[in-house]
């Protein structure tokens, strides 16, 4: 309803939210915030506010979907109606269906699913407020929720986008940047240098693509550090709780 600023990056290479080109938005993580779930996490990344919860491993409903040799992994990424400027209808959109699929596929290689044959592990991601890069924020939270649920993981999955805005390569695009520029979210298991998600829309030369990929990987590594800190803090909490009892 208001006019967009003419430029998203000023002459000093500072972005509209005050960040440098290669700077992540501030990230705040909390674990174990949904009482009913086996594991859960909350993330704020800039204005993104996202919950992730894991239920399982548990019996599969409907039963005929159960896999004989590993856990069935399911994922639902969902936006609250009030999470965006124009109210979003509650029924899942095609965009949400696609994102649910790529998130499931990006978390799948991190899970020792073969430990839990004939069960399901259900991941729910609820976007309470969206400002660009929600799939990455959602992945960060969901991977932590899996860890919080005590599910054995090969590695945490970190996620971060790089992209191109007004001729600059930038890290971790916010909403206005995402709308205007080229966005390339990736997910990474840093220990294995394994890129488990990669999407792009916009325009990049082959060289820019390689640079953006390197930038996104660096972003993931920073995210990974924050994820591990959050997990450590959670274990300390648990330990204290146990010792207090």
């Amino acid at each position, binding site marked *: 309803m208001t006019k967009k600023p003419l430029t998203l990056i000023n002459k000093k290479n500072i972005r509209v939210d005050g960040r440098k080109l290669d700077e992540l938005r501030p990230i705040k993580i909390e674990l174990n915030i949904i009482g009913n779930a086996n594991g859960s996490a909350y993330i704020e990344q800039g204005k993104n*506010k996202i919950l992730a919860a894991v239920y399982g491993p548990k019996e599969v409903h409907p039963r005929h979907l159960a896999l004989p040799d590993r856990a069935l992994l399911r994922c639902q990424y969902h936006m609250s109606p009030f*999470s965006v400027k124009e109210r979003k209808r509650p029924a899942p959109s095609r965009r949400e269906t696609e994102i649910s699929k790529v998130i499931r596929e990006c978390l799948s290689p991190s899970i020792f699913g073969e430990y839990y044959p004939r069960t399901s592990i259900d991941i729910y991601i609820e976007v309470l407020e969206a400002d660009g890069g929600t799939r990455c924020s959602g992945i960060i939270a969901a991977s932590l929720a899996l860890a919080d649920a005590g599910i054995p993981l090969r590695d945490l999955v970190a996620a971060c986008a790089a992209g191109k805005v007004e001729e600059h390569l930038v890290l971790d695009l916010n909403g206005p940047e995402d709308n205007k520029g080229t966005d390339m979210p990736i997910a990474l298991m840093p220990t294995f240098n394994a890129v488990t998600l990669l999407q792009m829309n916009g325009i990049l030369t082959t060289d820019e693509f390689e640079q953006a990929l390197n930038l996104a990987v660096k972003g993931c590594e920073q995210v990974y550090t924050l994820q591990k800190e959050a997990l450590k803090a959670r274990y300390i909490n648990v330990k204290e709780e146990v010792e207090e009892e």
Partner: protein
Amino acid sequence: MTFSTMIMRGRHKQIAQSILSGKRLDGRGLTDYREIKLVTGIIESAEGSARVYLGKTDVIVGIKIGIGEPFPDLPNKGVLTVNSEFRPIASPNFRAGPPGEKSIELSRVVDRGIRESSAVDLEKLCIIPGKKVFVIFIDISILNHDGNLIDASAIASLAALLNTKFSNYEVENDEIKIKTGYTQLPVLNHPITVTVAKIEDKLVIDPSLEEERVIGAKLTITVEDSGNICAIQKSGSDYFNKQLILEAVKLTNEKIGDLRKIIVED
């Protein structure tokens, strides 16, 4: 009977006995609320928002304002709609898909309290009579289900309405132009909703999920600013006798003061 059914029944007996003794398993008295936490204005993308915790029950309400057409029989009034989502993130018993009967009942009970008390001044939401009005979407999301979802949702909805602003605008040649600045949503009344549950002829306030499994019937009563009742809903497959109904109304009247303080003076 399976082993887990036996354990469950034992637990149910324990809950009931404890209530008969006047003290609940979590230490509360029969008419005590769990700790109520209310935070408002937490969602920037929403015109209004509030999150309410009743113990471990966690409900968020976001308010969006759109522009739409009025109902043909109410050409001078804005439109208000309440929707709730029991998404599987909040409970292993919730399923994805269109709202089920419990979600629909909750939406409609919250809607009734707001509508019958004329809480929102819908006439102020008319832009061009018969053609364009503001549409208020009250969207309730359950984030963790630990019982008493209706009260939590009603508190959050009223708090979110009180937190709602909408853009200033002017009308020029039947076109709506957004101006700078915001106006507070005109809220004229503050309906307070209390659910009173019946367990073995005892009345209980703010039941937890575990308690709800033992409860046969509930009365949800909404009271407006003047002290009048503006909505009631009995739910559950048990019954009330007249005496208990009147007691429930009395109990509600005792409770609304505290709740109103939490919401309105927030």
